[in-house]
């Protein structure tokens, strides 16, 4: 029941709209099916299968709107949810920023659905976990990991005739291996639309290698260092910046994208010219949704071009107020890289630190996008182009905007996953100078 096909979805949403008495009505449906296994201490701890289907109805009378959601699908329930959203709308004050719904539009199909992932069974998950645990046991390490696969669909329809539908699949795998003395820890994270690309054996092997090579780390003085961020580390750092690509916050003067004295930084050289960041839902390695909740199509959009801010997202309301076309927020992010491998980046480094992963990143100052967080699961000192020894974890205070001004070199872009949101990105390994570490941590 959780995954409805396009025609069945259309019929259901048309039925819901037929119950509407509002000036405007928008209905959306989201269904997901999937499962997960969690393991720790080389044994499964919990496992589950989850299936959800939720209908959301937003009704508007003039500029008053209300939203109600339901997970029952009888005719009576559908009538009730429409009536409730109308009741809420009548109680709500007028929203001066209300934007009329958009009419019919054509959207290209989203390429993010892979049958092999949709067909995953609990056995497939157990098999993937068994492979991972075996690697850890052979390496005499303790594994803790998580695998989760999801198949989902999204649809919207409104009283002006707009209809959009897409499906997607996703599998995320994260693995931590630790030695029994608690002196070494390694991690790997993977995210794919296609389950067949996931190799839990290979990922666990990398985590195990990091665990063994990070043992008995030495302390170094905090300070400014040349740093190579592996894609998993860079992704988590930059994800915090991607969220801020919003014109309204910038124009209102409360974002790192605000221009001192007013307006935003579009057109400004904000980063090193090696930095180009774009979104493209049709990217073969990172497919994304092709439309958004405002009923706008998503196309390839360049956000940072050779360090210059090219675009910020404009909601329909803000675009109208500023007299520009709406620019939807991106549904994926690709950062262009170079041709160097990670090994080549290390080889070209006289003195520096290789960072495998970052942890617990939080915003310190919105003005400069200053972030704090720590290294985790493998931090290594590089000298004369070679990894010399593991170093203890370090806390950093650094802004990704400042960091992208200090880029020395970029490696090959690869698909990477955020360790907090589990969203996938295309990010290269990044070598930067003057990355600021402010204290040491005893954590392993």
């Amino acid at each position, binding site marked *: 029941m959780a995954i409805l096909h396009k025609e069945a979805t259309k019929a259901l949403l048309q039925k819901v709209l037929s119950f509407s008495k509002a000036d405007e009505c928008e209905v959306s449906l989201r269904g997901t099916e999937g499962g*997960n296994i*969690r393991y*720790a*201490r*080389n*044994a*499964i701890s*919990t*496992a*589950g*299968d*989850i299936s959800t289907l*939720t209908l*959301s109805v937003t009704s508007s009378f003039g500029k008053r709107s*209300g*939203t109600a*959601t339901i*997970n029952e699908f009888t005719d009576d*329930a559908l009538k009730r*949810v429409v009536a*409730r*959203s109308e009741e*809420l709308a009548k*109680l*709500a004050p007028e929203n001066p*920023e209300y934007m009329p719904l958009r009419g019919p539009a054509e959207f290209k199909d989203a390429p993010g659905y892979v049958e092999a992932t949709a067909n995953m069974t609990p056995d497939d998950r*157990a098999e993937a976990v*068994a492979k991972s645990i075996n690697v850890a046991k052979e390496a005499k390490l303790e594994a*803790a*990991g*998580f695998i989760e696969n999801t198949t989902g669909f999204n649809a919207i329809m409104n009283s002006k005739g707009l209809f959009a539908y897409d499906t997607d699949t996703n599998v995320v795998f*994260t*693995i*931590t291996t*630790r030695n029994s003395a608690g002196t070494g820890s390694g991690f790997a994270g993977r995210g794919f639309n296609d389950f067949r690309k996931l190799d839990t054996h290979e990922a666990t092997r990398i985590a195990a290698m990091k665990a063994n090579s990070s043992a008995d780390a030495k302390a170094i003085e905090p300070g400014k260092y040349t740093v190579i961020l592996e894609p998993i580390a860079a992704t988590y750092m930059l994800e915090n910046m991607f969220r801020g690509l*919003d014109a309204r*916050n910038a124009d209102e*003067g*409360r974002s790192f994208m*605000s221009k001192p*004295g*007013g307006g935003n930084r579009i057109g400004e050289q904000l980063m090193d010219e090696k930095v180009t960041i774009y979104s493209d839902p049709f990217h073969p390695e990172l497919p994304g949704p092709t439309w958004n*909740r405002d009923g706008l199509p998503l196309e390839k959009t360049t956000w940072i071009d050779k360090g210059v801010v090219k675009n910020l997202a404009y909601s329909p309301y803000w675009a109208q107020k500023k007299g520009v076309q709406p620019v939807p927020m991106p549904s994926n992010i690709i950062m262009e890289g170079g041709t160097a491998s990670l090994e080549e980046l290390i080889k070209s480094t006289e003195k520096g630190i290789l960072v495998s992963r970052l*942890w*617990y990143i939080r*915003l310190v*100052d*919105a*003005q*400069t996008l*200053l972030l*704090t967080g*720590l290294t985790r699961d493998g931090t290594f000192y590089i000298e004369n182009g070679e990894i010399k020894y593991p170093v203890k*974890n370090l*806390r950093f*205070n650094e802004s990704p*905007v400042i960091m992208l001004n200090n880029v020395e070199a970029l490696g090959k872009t690869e698909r990477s996953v955020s360790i907090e949101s589990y969203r996938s990105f295309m990010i290269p390994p990044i070598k930067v100078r003057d990355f600021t570490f402010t204290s040491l*941590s005893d*954590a*392993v």
Partner: protein
Amino acid sequence: MKRRDFLHLTGMGIGAGILAQIPVLGKAIPLETPWHTVDVARKKELADIALEAARSKGATYTDVRIGRYLNQFVITREDKVQNVVNTESYGIGIRVLANGCWGFASTDDLSRDNIARTAALAVAIAKENSRLITTPVELAPQKGVGEVSWKAPIQRNAFEVPIKEKADLLLSVNDAALKGGANYIGSYLFLVNEQKYFASSDGSYIDQDIHRIWPTFDITKIDSATGKFERRSALSAPRGMGYEYLMPNEAEKIHGITTLYRNRYDMLEDARQGAAQLGQKMKAKSVEPGKYDLVLDPSHLWLTIHESVGHPTELDRVLGYEANFAGTSFLTLDKWESKKFNFGSPIVNIKADKKQPGSLGAVGYDDEGVPTQEWDLIKNGILVNYQAIRDQAHVIGLDHSQGCCYSQSWSDVQFQRMPNVSLQPGKQRMSPQDIIKNVERGIYIVGDGSFSIDQQRYNFQFGGQLFYEIKNGQITGMLKDVAYQSNTQEFWNSCKAIADERDYRLGGSFFDGKGQPEQVSAVSHGSSTARFNGVNVINTARKI
């Protein structure tokens, strides 16, 4: 909602995007119908179907949670109500032990046949996974408590307060901040009601009604000439209370350099003061980095307690079950076994508690049907205990669970979550002013801000909302760009003064995240104002 998402939506002031980040599951609450609860006899009947079905399939233990979870969110910015969202989620979660292994399944289809099918599925999962466990689950005994109920002692059910009244309050708050010179404000009201029914094969049938409320705001002021901006969040605390929390009461206020709140919150006053303080903050001196004696108000200290005491004393982290996500803990079992691990200075006494009235963690029974308790975690500075549930109690030699099991909904499996963890007030009569007057070079910090801590809970960094410089026992003015970094053990050993119980207040987290898939829980942390000597302060100002 994941904590991260919530921080993002309030922290970044993204306004219209707010709803996209709140997982609105379940059906809308009917406005026209009263806030009825599901009949207890009906819930017992459904639970018994699950218990019997699981037993007949081979479960050696079963618990059943039938939950009706209501949320209401009122979201405003400046002069606009952006949205009002009502959600309801109702269903059943069945957890079983079979072949010594846990199995879990949940459903929102409460027909008799489907409940029996779901129970059978939970048993099948347990049997399937039992091949991949290393030791069978060992449950601490828990006698059945029979048919009992527990209700949060609220005075006014916030769900029954008309939406207009709530929207009007938030719009007045916004108006006060804007009149006070703020450029932008977002204000929010979050309400939760958990109607939870628990039944187990031990013979417990427990009906509980739990309420939580969190009013909060985020104000921004911009200097258009320089492009600099400053922000101030509310000094409210999320509470396990009804709408009475929002009824101001002079007796519950502490007047000082800024007004602080005990068990009643004056949101209008806080917004007015917040807007004025932003003007001062913009002119404030940027902090000189170095060592300072910190005087930390409970509206700030709760978060430091949460991160540096609450999380590392979670037994599942100590044992490695969170290694792949939240991390492990520096408070390893050998430190506890030594009975002399010096966590903090001798005046540091920290209790775990699931009973404190008005707190977020207060319930009658946890999600394993264990009656709630209070116990010491840190006694006279020494680590003496952890937080455990039924399948962990034996690890620390307990013959009973400490009642720390929780699940965010009927659809998720319950696991070990933090009880309220609170610093006990000082035993000597002492006010925050008494503490400040003895500080030569220090900073008084009010309100919680940025926070980050490593995966074993050694190294942390915290910001705040308001920073006041203390020189020779006097507050001399406001500072900005302040964050402090320390190591948990060093920090708590530098605790040299704690104000007495007159100053004791609760703070808390509404959306504490843990587990994979991530679940949120709500937890309070109480303290009185406390002094920490010689803490490293950094300057966070940068230029882009």
